[in-house]
């Protein structure tokens, strides 16, 4: 068995968003190659944004990803407002957080129940899992639905919302409209608490990595749209400095642009585990206690436990949504007017899967001259491969099918969103 080459190939990864493949090569019992391949066709968003009006960026970039359109809309409007010197505050700012809460609840719950939990319980899909765990799957679907209801009420629809614009919204909800979300959100909060307990009881592989975590950090809040860009290793910069500290490598053997820290060319980790590690003390005390109660420390370095961290974030998003609705007063105007001027704007916000960076240069007519978008999955790409390099050797003696499933699970830990293909390219799959 050990005297030969084993190749484990998954030509089309399941339960991830978009089209990717995994390729492991094992020579004489030793892992010799790891490739996470992306064959998602490139869609050239940065190219097609050129000459478009700055007001169009939120609607156009939303189409990069149907799973996290709000994230694209939020990074786009904040970057444009940065270019125009516009500040959106008060209730409009709160409503943006509320919209993001909806997307976190919906996207995280989709991943927890339909994409990730089946790995832990040994089913190919949530539909298969429902035969034995019907109540749990039903709970997940109803929890996910509440996230969609927030996006539908505030955004007009759950996929590619239509109500987000530079400066605020086209229309703001009445107090009465928002109140209709309170009862579903209270049920969702209970379901989120159940989810935390449920996923914490799964069996987790004993595997940790000493990650460089990167996330936004706000002085008081758990981050959505604002904050410094910080790392677990001392980085502390403004979003506008992102490109000074991070770089995207377009390397031939790679399957996508790999993001690394310029300093040392190191891989880094964005997403729920990074946000949690860098903002734990910004969570309300009782959520901190809940996390501790299920055995999560202030920092979680086991990527398989990201499902538990994600569930903590769902619980937080439910509570934060309820808080925003309770404090809501209809703002004077649905948006802040902006005078168009030439400039460059930068923003990073926290998509469900992690940091999403946008930069735009606009002309004095408000036309986009240049755009740069760095989605979370291209930032995690190198980290995912690093995890596989470390993780697969521990299970190298397993038969191929079991090893393959474990490795797939290690990829799904990151909830990779391959459709965010702004930077992804197609490579010929090396079939040896």
């Amino acid at each position, binding site marked *: 068995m050990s005297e030969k080459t084993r190749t484990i190939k998954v030509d089309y*990864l*399941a*339960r*991830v*968003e*978009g*089209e990717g493949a995994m390729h492991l090569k094992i020579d004489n019992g030793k892992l010799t190659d790891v490739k996470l391949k992306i064959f998602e*066709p*490139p*869609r*050239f*968003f*940065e*190219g*097609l944004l*050129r000459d*478009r*009006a700055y007001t169009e960026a939120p609607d*156009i970039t939303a*189409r*990069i*990803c*149907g*799973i996290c*359109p709000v994230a694209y809309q939020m990074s786009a409007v904040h970057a444009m407002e940065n270019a125009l010197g516009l500040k959106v505050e008060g209730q409009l700012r709160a409503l943006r957080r509320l919209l993001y809460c909806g997307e976190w609840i919906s996207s995280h719950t*989709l991943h927890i129940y339909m*994409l990730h939990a*089946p790995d832990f319980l040994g089913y*190919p*899909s*949530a*539909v*298969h899992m429902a035969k034995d765990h019907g109540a749990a*799957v*039903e709970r997940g*679907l109803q929890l996910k*639905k509440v996230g*969609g209801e927030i996006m539908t009420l505030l955004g*007009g*629809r*759950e*996929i*590619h919302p*239509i*109500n987000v*614009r530079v400066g605020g*919204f*086209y*229309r703001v909800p009445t107090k009465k409209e928002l109140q209709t979300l309170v009862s579903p959100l209270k049920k969702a909060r209970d379901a989120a608490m159940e989810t935390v307990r449920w996923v914490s009881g799964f069996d987790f592989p004993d595997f940790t990595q000493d990650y460089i975590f990167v996330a936004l950090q706000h002085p008081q809040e758990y981050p959505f749209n604002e904050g410094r860009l910080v790392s677990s290793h001392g980085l502390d910069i403004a979003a506008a400095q992102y490109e000074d500290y991070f770089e995207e490598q*377009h390397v*031939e053997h790679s399957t996508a*642009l790999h993001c690394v820290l310029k300093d040392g060319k190191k891989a880094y980790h964005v997403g729920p585990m990074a946000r949690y590690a860098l903002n734990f003390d910004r969570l309300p005390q009782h959520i901190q206690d809940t996390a501790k109660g299920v055995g999560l420390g202030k920092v979680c370095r086991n990527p398989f436990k990201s499902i538990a961290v994600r569930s903590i974030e769902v619980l937080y998003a439910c509570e934060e949504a309820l808080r925003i609705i309770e404090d809501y007063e209809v703002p004077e105007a*649905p948006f802040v007017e902006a005078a168009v001027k030439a400039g460059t704007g930068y923003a990073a916000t926290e998509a469900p899967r992690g940091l999403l960076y946008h930069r735009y240069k606009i002309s004095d007519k408000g036309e986009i001259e240049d755009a740069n978008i760095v989605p979370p999955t291209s930032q995690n790409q190198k980290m995912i491969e690093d995890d596989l390099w470390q993780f697969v050797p521990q299970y190298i003696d397993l038969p191929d099918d079991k090893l393959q*499933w474990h490795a*797939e699970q290690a990829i799904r830990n990151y909830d990779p969103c391959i*459709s965010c293909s*702004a930077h992804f*390219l*197609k*490579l010929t799959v090396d079939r040896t």
Partner: protein
Amino acid sequence: MTKPKLAVWKFASCDGCQLSLLDCEDELLSLAGEIDIANFREASRAVVEGPYDLSLVEGSITTPHDRERIVEVRAQSKYLVTIGACATAGGIQALRNFKDVKDFISIVYAHPEYIDTLETSTPIAAHVHVDYELHGCPINKKQLLEVINSFLHKRKPDIPSYSVCIECKRRGTPCVTVSHGIACLGPVTHAGCGAICPAYNRGCYGCYGPKETPNTESLARWLRGNEMISEEDMLRLFRTFNADAPAFKKESERHE
């Protein structure tokens, strides 16, 4: 009796239209009782071999490989439905059709020579026979359920082909163009979304593509005549999410 087999396929797209199926939280499990979700990679590792009774196809054709793959998908599918603006009209990525794609590649990638792509983004029907097209960027999940339901009951889908204007009237939304002077593509846009944008004080931006027999020229002339929109913005409005749909394409070219 064996259940009909459903497959979901993805080409160049954002995943949003196939996500609509998973967004049917109240119906998903009962749907799975009526139809065998045989090949749906986003949701399941388990893949049942074809042929498939019903194929839902998301995304447009933008690479040489995908141009071959769609022929294979068609061969395995008894009834093929395209879902969304990418699959029915080429999607936002069809903006490349109006420019030189090589310029786009060099904007995004440091090493253009690694990129394997076609000059154009084209709808599925440009390559294979399509049995039914469901419009929208994104599609409406209720309409998706209607398409699946009608397939299961061997009847025609009840999907109206009139304009967004009718949906505004039904919803009781005052016309944003008449009452607020906002440029709106509602009169020429295919219904299906439920006329969301006007209900949120904004004009329709045509994400469901042209309706049957749209009079885009008249609408454009009227909006321009009433100074509701500039020539540049008119071009952009028709040339966004359904840029390569013939009626919108033709109209956008009038404003170049």
